[in-house]
């Protein structure tokens, strides 16, 4: 009895993995507990301040923190609205959190709000990153600093590889999707083709396949 249940659970897990992409949105919804009422709409300055804080504390990816700040702490958005806006922001070109700062600002205060969200998010990190750049240029001839940066660069490359693996793993049971990913890899990394023609060829093909499969 226990074994049968286990097998059933495993089969369901496999099925879930296959449709993970489609289900992410629903899952996100299911996981949220009943939420407290929303706060009043933020002013332009509150939007700027909110995203300034988010930009300064988000090391290694701002997305989980963005959700906590916007939905749980500041209560500007319901969990459902957050997921919907995020879907749009991930779909459009540009970093998803950057687009999110624009979308949230736009939603509450129009274009001034959108500007406030975007500037708030990138102001702090821009200054910090340039401070690091100045430090690097002044010290890069010191052998210790050079060694340290070599280690830092190697670790940063490792993080990027881990992200690529996490995006690629769900494709391993989808031969056509995996083939499209492989073609993209070969075009960019091996043939060193420009991004625009590569995307113009692969994306419509990939969307066509997705629509055929869903039917």
């Amino acid at each position, binding site marked *: 009895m226990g074994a049968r249940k286990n097998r059933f659970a495993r089969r369901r897990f496999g099925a879930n993995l296959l449709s993970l992409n489609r289900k992410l949105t629903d899952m996100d919804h299911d996981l949220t507990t009943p939420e407290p009422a929303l706060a009043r709409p933020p002013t332009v300055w509150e939007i700027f301040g909110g995203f300034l804080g988010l930009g300064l504390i988000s090391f290694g990816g701002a997305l989980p923190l963005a959700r906590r700040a916007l939905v749980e702490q500041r209560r500007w958005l319901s969990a459902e609205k957050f997921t919907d806006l995020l879907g749009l922001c991930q779909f459009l070109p540009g970093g998803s959190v950057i687009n999110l700062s624009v979308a949230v600002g736009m939603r509450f205060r129009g274009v001034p709000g959108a500007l406030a969200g975007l500037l708030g998010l*990138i102001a702090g990190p821009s200054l910090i990153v*340039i401070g690091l750049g100045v430090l690097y240029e002044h010290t890069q001839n010191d052998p210790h600093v050079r060694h340290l940066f070599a280690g830092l660069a190697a670790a940063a490359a490792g993080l990027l590889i881990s992200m690529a693996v996490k995006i690629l793993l769900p494709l391993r049971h989808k031969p056509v999707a995996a083939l499209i990913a492989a073609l993209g890899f070969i075009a*960019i990394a091996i043939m060193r083709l420009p991004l625009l023609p590569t995307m113009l060829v692969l994306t419509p093909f990939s969307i066509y396949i997705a629509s055929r499969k869903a039917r």
Partner: protein
Amino acid sequence: MNDTLISLAVIFSQLSLLAFGGGNTILPEMQRQVVDVHHWMPASEFSALFALAQAAPGPNLMVVTLVGWHVAGWAGMLVTSVAKFGPSSLVTVLAMHAWERCKDRPWRRYAQLGLVPVTAGVVAASAALIAEASNPTAIAWAITAFTAVMAIKTRIHPLWLLAAGSLIGLTGIGQL
């Protein structure tokens, strides 16, 4: 100088509109433009800037700001930032209403699903190119492999992994 600023504006506004699936997809194209086409810096320097930006807080692609500053100072930083963040933000503003209206149209989901494999392939290419450019020595490859495995297998914070890599680097073991 002015030509440089114009080139920066053209390159990064184009990249801004191509960055489907987040910033990492445009890393190879940025590297190609900055290193191979315009010769503003060698590939190793580009990787060093990328690493610096990863160590800083904030959204994913602060290397953009840093590249602009490195190539043309504060003016370069300003031009690059506006070019990189402006066009995609404008698209977001314009798309919000349309997105709301098309909530239940099937194409919305097909487009989302269809972009996933393309993004995956391009991000993998990013990782390969950056790893190749950052790793002249065996010890650097070892740090990269260690960091990648730890980031996949554990929930350890990325900042600790960057710190660990820097410390191993600082010892100078296996480096020239």
